[in-house]
């Protein structure tokens, strides 16, 4: 093909792309605001910024202890219930699990001086206490997701009597592995300086996430969007995801500083040097059964950051589950949807008292 022929072809293709883009933009204009987190739930406990939700059952109870999901503070938890056909929570409900979700909310200036201890031992602890009391049980199942998984590990190590089974999902444990780009960048950041002028804006976190894969996340995905055949469903899926990605709460300054410094920079958790509430957090104190679910293609929490958990927990009943998806795919991909909720419930049923 000569250069002129190629150029003519390019123009033709460009015109076709332009047409598809116009069509996609027209379709998007008609969509308006997308809805997320639609499964029926009620707020059963609230304190300061946090809310504890309980989901309405969708099936006969599997007679398992209640399951508390502790999500990360750096993103909004509705990712777990993004839309009816992409909802980890809905799948769990349909398998008869009694699901609670801890929503950290949107921290503001009044949370600036709240330490990490308060989030783990205070808010999370009081949510656990509330659920135990509401259900008149001694222990519940805890599912920690991403940063929430790390926090759940800390809680389970300190308050092991309250946890029947612990599930961690895409949760970092070893914060200094060669594949962990976030960790590499975090090493030289003066996080004291960063948080000296207040909470860390959600936009800052968004920038950092985009910088992990800038070409795909700031260019390619929008080019691909404009090439969608104005399929309303697909566009709505895209917009829901887009909403979630950029709906990052500000991070409470003190807790954020402690998290970055203690976990990313000093790797205290895996070294057994972390202390919360004046008590040492030792992974070997986790004696309950542990299911560690990690994503094989995770660019935020690489498998190497999650896998070491097995070597450090005290529990003799430890199982790791690798899913061939990325970090976000763990919540919404078809592969994860098909396998993960069923695997969780099967694992819990095997350990049913």
């Amino acid at each position, binding site marked *: *093909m000569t*250069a002129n022929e*190629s*150029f003519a072809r*390019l123009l033709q*293709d*460009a015109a076709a*792309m332009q047409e598809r883009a116009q069509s996609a933009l027209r379709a998007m204009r008609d969509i308006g605001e997308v809805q997320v987190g639609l499964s029926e739930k009620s707020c059963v406990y609230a304190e*300061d910024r946090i809310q504890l939700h309980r989901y309405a059952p969708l099936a006969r109870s599997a007679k398992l*202890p209640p399951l508390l999901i502790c999500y990360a503070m750096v993103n909004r938890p509705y990712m777990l219930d993004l839309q009816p056909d992409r909802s980890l929570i809905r799948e769990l409900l349909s398998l008869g699990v009694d699901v609670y979700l801890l929503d950290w909310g949107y921290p503001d*200036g*009044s949370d*600036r*001086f*709240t330490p990490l201890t308060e989030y783990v031992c*205070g808010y999370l602890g*009081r949510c656990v206490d509330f659920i*135990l009391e509401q*259900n*008149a*049980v*001694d*222990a519940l199942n805890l599912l920690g997701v991403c940063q929430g998984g790390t926090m759940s590990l800390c809680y389970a190590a300190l308050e092991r*009597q309250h946890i*029947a089974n612990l599930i961690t999902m895409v949760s970092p444990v070893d914060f200094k592995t*060669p594949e962990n*780009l976030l960790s*590499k*960048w975090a090493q*030289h*950041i*003066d996080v004291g*300086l*960063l948080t*000296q*002028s*207040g909470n860390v804006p959600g936009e800052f976190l968004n920038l950092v996430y985009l*910088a*992990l*894969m800038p*070409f795909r996340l700031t*260019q*390619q995905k929008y*080019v691909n969007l404009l*090439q969608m055949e104005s399929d309303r469903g697909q566009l709505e899926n895209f917009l829901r995801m887009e909403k979630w990605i950029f709906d990052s709460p500000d991070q409470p300054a003190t807790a954020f500083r402690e998290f970055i410094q203690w976990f990313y920079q000093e790797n205290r958790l895996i070294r057994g040097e972390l202390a919360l509430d004046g008590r040492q957090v030792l992974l070997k104190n986790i*004696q309950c059964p542990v299911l560690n679910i990690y994503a094989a293609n995770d660019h935020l929490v690489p498998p190497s950051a999650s896998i070491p958990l*097995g070597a450090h927990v005290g529990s*003799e*009943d*430890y*199982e*790791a589950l*690798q*899913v*061939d998806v990325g970090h976000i795919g763990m919540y919404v991909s078809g*592969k*994860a949807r098909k*396998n993960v909720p069923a695997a969780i419930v099967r694992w819990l049923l095997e*350990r049913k*008292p």
Partner: protein
Amino acid sequence: MDDSATTPAQAPPYLKAWEDYVAACQVLFERLTDPAAADVGGPTPLAFLGSWKDFATNLGMRPDSAAVDGLNPQGMFASLLPALGYSREHQEIGRRMLELTGKFQRRYADFVQQSTEIGRSALQATHRQASNDETLLATPAAIYDAWIDSAEGAYAQAAHGEPFARLMADLCNILSGFKIERGKLLEALARQFDWPSRAEVDSLHRQVRTLRSAAAKAKGAAKAKGAAKPTTGLTRRGKRKTRKATRRADR
């Protein structure tokens, strides 16, 4: 590339800059569409940058990084007396902000250079790919996706390196420092207007934190005193048989 052949010597600088840019794109396109003719690993057609620099000069801007390299705010202030008088504190803040600005510009120039190198590596990788796989040239979308893959690959290689991590951290730290200094100026402004200052709001937030913590503790203590223990429920099991396993979800 002989620009004089297409653009009259007296053409406005912006026109020449634009034309050179288009010409560079055409060269690039020809290379991509004809791998045999492509000088794989050869220089990127960046000649058009010269015209942009001329254009910038024409607008009164400094044409290259010499301005940044030559900028030494510390040096500027070294020749002056120490901050004196009524606005001494504000002068100091201004000096620190200037210092930080200079530092940021230098490190940002490093960032731009890194980015350019990443772009060049990506382009070379795309060339290599296109030379080995003609289907990539079939559509702009295919070559675009190949370029994105190459760019992410080149970026990841750089981003995982220590210099890049230092660079990112420096940019972040400098901006954090700048934000703090700017906050001091705003604090002074707030006092002029009798607005609550950041320090005052922080003090209130600290008190809120203390009160919340005390309230939660008191509530917990009261509950522990008054509430009965759960009477029914799940009991903890004994240790299960040792079972440490890894499996894959799709197996």
